[in-house]
Every structure is written in C-alpha cells, then in structure tokens.
C-alpha cells in the first residue's frame, strides 16, 4: 500500500506505477481499440473478470505475474505492429488473461491483518484503475484508426514490444540490476 494513501487509491494507482502492468494494459487497449464497440465492451468485462479472479487468487498464494505480463506486452506489441487479422474472441480471451495476471501480481488481497473492507476497496480501485488505462488506450486507438492514422497504434505497439523484449531479456538472463516496476 502506498504510504499516506487510502486503500482504494492504492489499488487504483497500482497499474499506473507498476510499469509491467501499465505496458500490458496499454498494449491491450490499443489492440482492443481496433474492434467494434460491442467487442470492446466485452473485452472490458473480460478484463474485469480476470482482475477479480487474479486478485482473489492472492488470498490463497502469491503469484508473480510480472514476467508473464512482459511476455503478454511483447505479444500484444508485435500483434499491434504486424496487424494480422485476429478474431474478436481471441481479444476477449486475452483481456481476461491480462486481467488475471494484473490482479494476481497486485498485492491487494494477500493474507494479512488488513480488514476485508480495506482489501475490497483496494481491489475495487485496482479494477477501476486498470479499466481506465485499457479503455482510454482503446478509445485513442479507435480514434486514430477512424481518422486514418492507424499507423500510430502500430508504431506504439512496436515501441511497447521493444521495451518488453529488453526487460524480458533482463529477467530471463538474470543480469543484476535494480528491480523494475513500481516507482520508489
């Protein structure tokens, strides 16, 4: 929990300050923005479901999804850049997966002395924060595509994929360095 912040704010801010989460959610939003409005809504619901499931999983055991989220960010980024035709159902499924990993990697419902209300507020904040990132990115992507600037999300996807490659290499090779992720 962020010192000085309420549990709701801590949960809502977490996806913004945990860069692996931010990267994956931004890329997911840019991808989902290429879908129709109904499919975007379904993807948002899937993300929500995944977030809840992932957050609840913290009550049983801690899962580190940081590396997996970087992998997802890489896949999303490459998909964005390459623009292959992908069924909407796939987007919805990966939204749920991304949500699950974000929720599992966010220590909002871990076992401890915090009362249930605190954990519930944190989880609610997390779901709202993640949706804000995903839906805003989706909206921007959709606007860009509709105005003939479809190259912008593709370039952004390339950048996200490149960042993810570098950080995955760092994680996989185990090269000593400061831990990535949340701001100090």
């Amino acid at each position, binding site marked *: 929990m962020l010192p000085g912040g309420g549990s709701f704010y801590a949960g809502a801010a977490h996806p913004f300050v945990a860069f692996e989460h931010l990267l994956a959610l931004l890329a997911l939003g840019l991808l989902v923005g290429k879908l129709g409005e109904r499919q975007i809504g379904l993807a948002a619901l899937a993300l929500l479901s995944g977030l809840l499931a992932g957050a609840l999983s913290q009550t049983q055991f801690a899962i580190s999804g940081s590396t997996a989220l970087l992998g997802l960010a890489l896949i999303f980024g490459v998909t964005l850049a390459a623009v292959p035709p992908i069924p909407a159902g796939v987007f919805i499924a990966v939204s749920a997966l991304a949500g699950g990993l974000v929720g599992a990697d966010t220590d909002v419902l871990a076992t401890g002395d915090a009362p249930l209300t605190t954990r519930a507020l944190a989880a609610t904040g997390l779901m709202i924060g993640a949706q804000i990132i995903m839906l805003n990115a989706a909206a921007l992507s959709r606007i860009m595509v509709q105005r003939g600037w479809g190259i912008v999300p593709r*370039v952004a996807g390339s*950048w996200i994929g490149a960042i993810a490659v570098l950080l995955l290499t760092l994680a996989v090779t185990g090269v000593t360095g400061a831990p990535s992720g949340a701001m100090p």
Partner: protein
Amino acid sequence: MAHSSKTILALTVTAMTVAAMAASPAAAHTGGTVGSWTSGFLHPISGIDHVVAMVAVGLWGGILRAPAIWVLPVVFPMVMAFGGALGIAGVPLPGVETGIAVSGIVLGLMVLFAVRTQLWVAGVLVAVFAIFHCHAHGAELPGSANPLAYAAGFVIATGLLHLIGIAVGQLYAMPRGQYVVRGAGAAIALVGAAFLTGIA
C-alpha cells in the same frame, strides 16, 4: 489539407513532442524512475553519431515513400531491441562504434543519392545497423536504477528521432525540398565519416 500544411503540422507536432519529452519534469521524486527515464531518453540523443543515423532512417523512408516510410519505424524498434538484448546479455559485438559510424555514412549516402531499393533490402540494411546502435544502449540498461524506465526512455527517444526524420522527409515531395533532404543526407554521411576517421 494542402501538402505543405501537412508537412508543417508534422514538423510542429514532432518538435513539440520532442521538446515536451526532453523537458525536465517537475517531479517530486528525483533519481530512481525519473533519473532512469532521463538517462535512457538522453542516451540516443547524447551522441551525434546515434542521432544522425536515426534521423537518416526516417529521411530514407521519406524518399522510399509508402510502405517503407511507415514499415521502417515500425520494424526498427523491434530489431533494435534484439541488439539491445545482446547488450544486456553481455554478448560481445565486435566493432560497435565502427558499425555505428558506418551506418551514418551508408544511410547518409542513401539519402544523398535518393537510392530507391526494394523494401526488403532497405529493411535488412536498417535492421543490421539497428543492432549496432542498440547494443550500446542495452549494455547500460542493467546498471540503471529502473531498467524499465531506462528502456522506455531510449526506445521512445529513438522512435522520436525517426519521426523527426520522417517529418523532414516529407519535404522530399517538394521540388526544393529534395535539396533539403538530400543535403541532410550529405551532412549525415560527413558526420559518419568524421567518426569513422576519428576526427569527431
């Protein structure tokens, strides 16, 4: 919208973006993430040899026009990341500085002589040079306080340099603009030669 207006808009947006990104943020937290972001962002633009080559990629894309003008800045970051991964993993790449200098010469000449090649040829050439350029960036990534911020910084800075090149490359469509673009290519080649010969 007239073509000249599009060019002006492209240049203005690019310049503002670069200025905004380069401006020191009034951040409450110093060091750590902000410091790493700044270090990463400044790394590609602190060396003129890096800068001219990245801009040349965009300029050449402007000469090659669609689809190269957009394929190159989409593909380049990913290939660049591969070179960076080699640097992170400590895989030695012989002649990195020479490769960077040669990239300036070759890409500058491509722009100067307005060489039009097939897309795959341009892509391979740019990809090879991208590996050299990013190997140096990647080698410093593990030592940063926040590797993700550092990586984001130098990837975005490199991308913005491409965008500047693309924006200027739009001038190639104009009769007099061709002289500007090709003149920039000549200057880039000279910079590359200066680094290769040790003058710079």
